[in-house]
């Protein structure tokens, strides 16, 4: 019964998506919408297959920018979260500015970055870092600060030094929080890279989409969107798998 429930839980969203795709295909095939306004799903897949080698090259560039930015963001987030956790004054000083910085629209910042750093790969990675830094840092800080005070007292009563409290208690405790932040950041990372590329450059899915749009090749624009979606989901699941490998105790809960 339980197994049946699981299968139907998975089938329902798939059936729904298939239904949307069929409706879309039907509307375009019947000629109710012009193909150059909205290409049909089959057109998109065709475009993807025909331009596969081009798209693959651009995808590689975007993927590299996204992952590099994500890794840089992780490093900075750890440094920031640890400093904010250890020094209350720093947290009080920085936390509000951190929140305010997130309200600045990234689409406005990106062209400025192109002005400052040129059209190379650096400003793209910078955009990714900007988008990914916040969710990781906030979650990590929350994890570090929500350790049970009695647990800290217990290890303190054992004579633990500050560094031991951090490495043996606080850090492993904050890991699940870190991963939920990282998963959010992962979905942003590819999008951040595309926004960075959108403003100009030599390669990447953002650049490719821009060219396709200028050529009114909407099927290629949609094909790029499809690739971006798959890539983002891929990064997300990749991180979820790393999490499962690092924290085997989490999945024991249900047993």
């Amino acid at each position: 019964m339980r197994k049946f429930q699981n299968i139907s839980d998975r089938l329902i969203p798939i059936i729904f998506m298939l239904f949307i795709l069929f409706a879309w295909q039907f509307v375009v095939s019947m000629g109710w919408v012009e193909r150059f306004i909205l290409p049909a799903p089959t057109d998109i897949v065709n475009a993807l297959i025909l331009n596969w080698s081009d798209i693959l090259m651009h995808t590689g560039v975007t993927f590299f920018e996204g992952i590099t930015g994500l890794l840089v963001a992780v490093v900075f987030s750890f440094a920031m979260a640890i400093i904010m956790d250890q020094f209350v004054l720093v947290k009080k000083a920085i936390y509000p500015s951190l929140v305010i910085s997130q309200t600045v629209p990234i689409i406005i910042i990106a062209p400025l970055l192109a002005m400052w750093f040129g059209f190379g790969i650096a400003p793209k990675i910078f955009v990714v870092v900007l988008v990914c830094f916040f969710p990781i840092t906030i979650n990590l800080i929350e994890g570090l600060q929500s350790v049970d005070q009695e647990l800290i007292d217990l290890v303190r009563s054992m004579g633990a030094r500050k560094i031991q409290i951090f490495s043996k208690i606080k850090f492993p405790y904050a890991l699940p929080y870190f991963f939920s932040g990282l998963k959010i950041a992962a979905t942003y990372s590819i999008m951040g890279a595309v926004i960075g590329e959108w403003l100009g450059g030599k390669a990447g899915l953002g650049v490719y989409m821009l060219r396709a749009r200028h050529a009114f090749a909407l099927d290629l624009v949609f094909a790029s969107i499809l690739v971006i979606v798959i890539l983002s989901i891929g990064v997300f699941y990749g991180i979820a798998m790393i999490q499962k490998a690092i924290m085997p105790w989490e999945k024991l809960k249900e047993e």
Partner: protein
Amino acid sequence: MNFYQNNSVLKVEQVTKEYNHKNIIEGIDIHLNQGEFVSILGPSGCGKSTLFNVIAGLLLPEQGKVFVNDVDVTGKTGIVSYMYQKDLLLPWRNVVDNGILPLEIRGMKKDEAREKVIEMLPVFGLQDHMEKYPNQLSGGMKQRVSLMRTYMFSKEIMLLDEPFGGLDAITRLKMQKYLLEILKKIHGSVLFITHDIDEAIFLSDRIYIIKGFPAHIVEEIKVPAKGSDTQEAMNTNEFRDLRAKVLKLL
């Protein structure tokens, strides 16, 4: 009043601790002898845990001193072991690795620490659960692991702060017997906090009764030796009178 002052491993002298300029505990004098089980019995929230935090060195008292083996250790951590009502096990470590935490903090190598813990598992009845993680264990089992971790730190002076307070009544009775069995094997000295009169009488050699605002020791009671280690042995007139006497004092 004091029965075996001479071989006491822990002495608390005239300890007063305030919070927000009000005394919570005042003029506390207690001692614990080698191998003895002493309870501190009093109503919830009267400052018993504050006293434990002072003894563990986590809080510095305004007045008074704490001696371990006649050495002044007031405000020093890392000397006595401490067990809380919450099991406070690390969910990312299995039973053995939870047990090695105090040894690791002391700087022992992990493999060596694991060997020591594995050696002790049968004593605590945990040999069949060594690979399990805390969320696979029942409440009683978790407290066994927590007790073993407390022991791994030190058996000289074990502070147990209502360790069975979060368990259901039946598991609790089982754990009380279990604790006495363990103590027979490991010869530890225990200072035990509780608000349960029967628990205090069943487990202890001596009981301090603490109450009031600020909390102070109102009476020290010696519990007569019990014939056997079962709760049924408590149904004699002698223990009934003792229970009535304690109840009156509270």
